[in-house]
């Protein structure tokens, strides 16, 4: 069973008398531990796709299933297994990486000490342990990506949605970051949906798709052999 399944999604917006199409009959499935990259230019429907996949927006047509459950009716506990990562979510001035990463744990009543410990572990995992007590305004863009990733994985999600992970990143640092995201997705069996305005985020992606004027081009489902491999890897990585 796919972790995320978008089935024939359609979305329209009204603007005055006009009805504008954001997504047309979009279907997409993502497996455990699979990294899917969706590229598309401005106005392609990328942001709408992300919001619908994350459950923050409802489609006009079609269904969104997360772990086999219709997302709109899923319990909060299940919805919390979706991590939405966006580099625009920057912490308040002065807050350090450890505090920023621990915040989602405070929301689910994890004790302060335990949250700090888990945040440190997450930062170590993304290679940003040395930033633990560095305030946000001192991070360079690639460090901000690592911290954002640590914050996203600290609650061990089943689905990670990362909007434009490589935006503003130096080209030499881009591939190592994408390889890191892929490594974490594969090791932990996290289904990962990356988006990008261009094709710079293709490194490490198991599948690459294109949103073109609201239409999704490419392989909506992984090939049978890929599913077998992903499930084998997920079984190996599970405790």
């Amino acid at each position, binding site marked *: 069973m796919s972790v995320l399944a978008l089935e024939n999604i359609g979305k329209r*917006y009204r*603007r005055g008398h*006009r*009805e*504008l*199409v*954001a997504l047309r009959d979009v279907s997409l499935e993502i497996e455990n531990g699979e990294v899917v*990259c969706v*590229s*598309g*230019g*401005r*106005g*392609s*429907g990328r942001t709408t796709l992300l919001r619908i996949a994350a459950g923050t927006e409802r489609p006009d047509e079609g269904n969104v299933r997360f772990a086999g459950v219709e997302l709109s009716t899923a319990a909060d506990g299940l919805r919390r297994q979706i991590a939405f990562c966006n580099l625009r979510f920057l912490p308040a001035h002065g807050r350090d990486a450890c505090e920023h990463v621990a915040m989602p744990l405070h929301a689910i009543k994890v004790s302060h000490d335990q949250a700090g410990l888990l945040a440190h572990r997450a930062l170590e995992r993304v290679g940003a342990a040395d930033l633990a007590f560095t305030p946000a305004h001192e991070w360079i863009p690639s460090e901000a990506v690592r911290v954002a990733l640590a914050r996203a994985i600290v609650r061990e999600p089943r689905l990670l949605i990362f909007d434009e992970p490589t935006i503003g990143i130096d*080209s*030499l640092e881009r*591939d190592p970051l*994408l390889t890191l995201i892929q490594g974490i997705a594969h090791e932990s069996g996290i289904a990962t949906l990356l988006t990008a305005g*261009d*094709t*710079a985020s*293709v*490194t*490490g*992606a*198991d*599948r*690459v*798709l*294109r949103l*073109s*004027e*609201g*239409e999704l*081009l*490419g*392989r909506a489902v992984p090939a049978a052999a890929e599913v077998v491999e992903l499930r084998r890897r997920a079984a190996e990585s599970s405790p």
Partner: protein
Amino acid sequence: MGALTRVRWRSWGTGSTGETVTTSGAKLRPSAKLAVLGLVLQRPSWGYELVARFDRAFAEQQPWPWRVTPQAIYGALNDLEAVELIERIEPEGEPRTLSAQRNARQHWRATAGGARAMREWLAAPMLSNPTREEVLIRLHFGADDASLRAMLQLHAAECLEELERIGATPALTRPERLVKEDRRLAVQARLSWIDFALAELRGPDDARIRPGER
């Protein structure tokens, strides 16, 4: 009968051959020969008329003209006849004089095998690094909007598969990184063109959200 196969050219930095081996075994590449086959399929013609039609279809196309010499057109006719993709149409009735016999225009028409080979070539996906000739032939002979749309979707699938291969290839040294980036940006350009072409086929009546509109 073997299955339709597309000859793939996977090495980065080299152009696609665009060659397709059809079920009849004919090897078709995007060349003047293939364009002539397409023109003859549209309607039977004689040599000089084909030269003029080729010019109108391709050489006068701005901003990407494709010019060939008349000799290349005549050579293509002979080659296509040799592999039985086109055939001569016998003139009706015997010319009465020797000079009439000499001046009779030799018409050519496509054989059933020629029509099938062209159809199969058009149905094969355009790879991510097509030549100018391949793009021009597909756009000219793609029968209707639905066929062009299907062609663009197949082309997009090829480009996305190439991006997956590019993404899976480690690039540790500077030359490797430069080559990888070269191919990635080239494929990205193809995808931008596909976006443009799909929007063009969709037409102005089908409202879309423009950046910034919500």
